[in-house]
């Protein structure tokens, strides 16, 4: 199902969702933080794109820009486009954006307890959008809410629909939020660290549920996470982010077999393993750069073992590494060959 972005996409219809060269700045008292520096990715129907990165890499900000829920100010979009079925959302009216939100693109968040409103029942929060956006009566909306809770496998849905978020366990709250995001039948679902706050057995349940719903509805799924394990289990394609840039795009098997960027390679190396008690872990020396002061050249060069003079001066752009693979490293070809 994974159609590689680029030429194939241009000839037929436009991709379902396309982020193209997005720049976002946060104008703060301490200066201008360059949070996104030309981020591009695409998602098609029925496809899972994983956006992998550590805290501060810009993965959540990209999602917020897509949803139009950035805090403005301090955030300012300074360049690029976000196209949904070919339409640039950044140029669309606020009414149109509201329409696309939830009906076109929906989002679920990491912390379900703070994403849900504690003073309304779970049912009310699902029904509200059905009544406002689809003009359903209270009764119709309640029936649909129960169906949705059933769909995400919440037991005793007719009783649960009348309960408040605090009466749900962590895993159930995440299910309720998934139900809510599906209410208006979106084409694209953005899941921002959906299982990070959950225990591993519950995480497995939620990831199964997401994968199943996505396959059934042929949704495009953008999975934002820092967990290399979760990504390996579900992703078709992966975009790795570092300091507000995409450093590598690849399909999942190739990325894990032969990482095309030193950052991805180092990240995989620093992972403790379940199947053996290793000796010392490989680490990435130093810290991610401050976004207020991103180093010139490749932003990863101060921490990179392969860095040369070229890396300190020239910003690497996408090096093609075969079908649908790119890497923002001057020495990507050497790296892939050496692994």
């Amino acid at each position, binding site marked *: 199902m994974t159609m590689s972005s680029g030429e194939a996409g241009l000839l037929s219809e436009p991709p379902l969702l396309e982020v193209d060269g997005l720049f976002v700045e946060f104008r703060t008292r301490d200066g201008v933080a360059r949070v996104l520096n030309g981020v591009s990715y695409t998602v098609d129907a029925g496809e899972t794109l994983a956006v992998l990165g550590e805290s501060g890499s810009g993965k959540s900000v990209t999602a917020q820009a897509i949803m139009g829920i950035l805090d403005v100010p301090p955030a300012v979009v300074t360049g690029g486009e976000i196209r949904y079925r070919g339409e640039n959302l950044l140029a669309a009216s606020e009414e149109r954006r509201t329409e696309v939100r939830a009906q076109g693109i929906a989002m679920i968040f990491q912390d379900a307890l703070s994403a849900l409103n504690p003073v309304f029942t779970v049912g009310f929060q699902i029904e509200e959008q059905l009544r406002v956006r689809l003009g359903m009566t209270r009764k119709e909306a309640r029936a649909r809410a129960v169906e949705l809770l059933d769909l995400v496998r919440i037991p005793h849905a007719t009783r649960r629909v009348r309960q408040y978020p605090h009466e749900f366990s962590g895993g159930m709250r995440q299910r309720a939020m998934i139900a809510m995001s599906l209410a208006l039948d979106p084409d694209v679902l953005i899941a921002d660290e959906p299982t990070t706050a959950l225990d*591993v057995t519950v995480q*497995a349940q939620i990831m199964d549920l997401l994968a199943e719903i996505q396959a059934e509805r042929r949704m495009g799924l953008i999975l934002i996470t820092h967990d290399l394990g979760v990504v390996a289990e579900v992703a078709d394609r992966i975009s790795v982010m570092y300091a507000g840039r995409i450093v590598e795009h690849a399909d999942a098997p190739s990325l894990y077999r032969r990482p095309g960027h030193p950052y991805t390679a180092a990240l995989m190396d620093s992972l403790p393993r379940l199947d053996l*008690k290793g000796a010392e872990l490989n680490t990435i020396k130093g810290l991610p750069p401050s976004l207020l002061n991103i180093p010139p050249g490749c932003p990863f060069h101060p921490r990179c073992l392969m860095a040369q003079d070229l890396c300190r001066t020239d910003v690497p752009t996408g090096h093609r590494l075969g079908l649908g693979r790119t890497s923002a490293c001057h020495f990507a070809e050497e790296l892939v060959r050496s692994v």
Partner: protein
Amino acid sequence: MSESLATEPILQVRDLVKHFPVRVGVLFKHTIGHVRAVDGVSFDLHRGETLGVVGESGCGKSTLAQVLMRLEPPTSGSARFQGRDMFAMRGAELRRLRRSIQIVLQDPYTSLNPRMTVGDIVGEPFEIHPEVAPKGSRSAKVRDLLDVVGLNPEHLNRYPHQFSGGQRQRIGIARALALRPDVIICDEPVSALDVSIQAQVMNLLAELQSDFGLSYVFIAHDLSVVRHLSDRVAVMYLGKIAEIGTEDEIYDHPTHPYTQALLSAVPVADPTVRGQRQVIRLEGDVPSPVDPPSGCRFRTRCWKAQEICAESEPELATRGAGHPSACHFAEERSVVP
């Protein structure tokens, strides 16, 4: 390691229980039940050893840490530190105990006082235990400690907010090391950190252990992290130990169904094994520790459960296998690919 196993354990915990009362009412408070956070836990910790404690949220692993730190009194049970009853200690002996057992907390953002400089935070233990460092030598000691944990000693006068998460966790570790403890309880020390930073802190913990001969109780929910650092591992479920053994026994030869399910649910960072791995899917959530199931506490989610599991509670005993497991039907099954 092998010689030290023969000597007396530094910490001996037996049948440790901690219940918290659930109280309701405004004027006339009364107790309607108890949260059985820790409900009969026993283990030994040897000198220079790391005991990993894994389990999901609510299994009682952090309460265990608090009781071992003597921050909470136990409901019943005993713990001996170097052969002496920890919970009977008073006065000078208790002060010595507090020096010997230290803790590193999970959240480096809330566990450091934002109004104190790093020097004051790391040096504060010396104010309470002045016998460890006479007044004149403190600043030199603090610099040493910062150096040991890989921070720049010149940053003594900075405040916590000027440091990143990983650096703050190093400050917390320096503070724990200040009094030259024998045992450090690490309560989820790396779970708030990014992968690349997590590896740095794990390496530091391993290095400090071999340099100072520390014993760790390493509490975490991440099974890969625990395996990496632990010599022995205890798996907890609803306040009890389900299975305990060496790192190899637990990960490569698990016999308790809960351990097997837990291990099989960990996502593996290799897309080529996708769909081929056998994953044991548990249904439902962990039951409430206020009213745990009768008999075996895991039976409500267990695929092996029989009548006997509801009637009698399985003891943590060696059932043919090489290590103790609290299951009537304990049977080895390899789940880690």
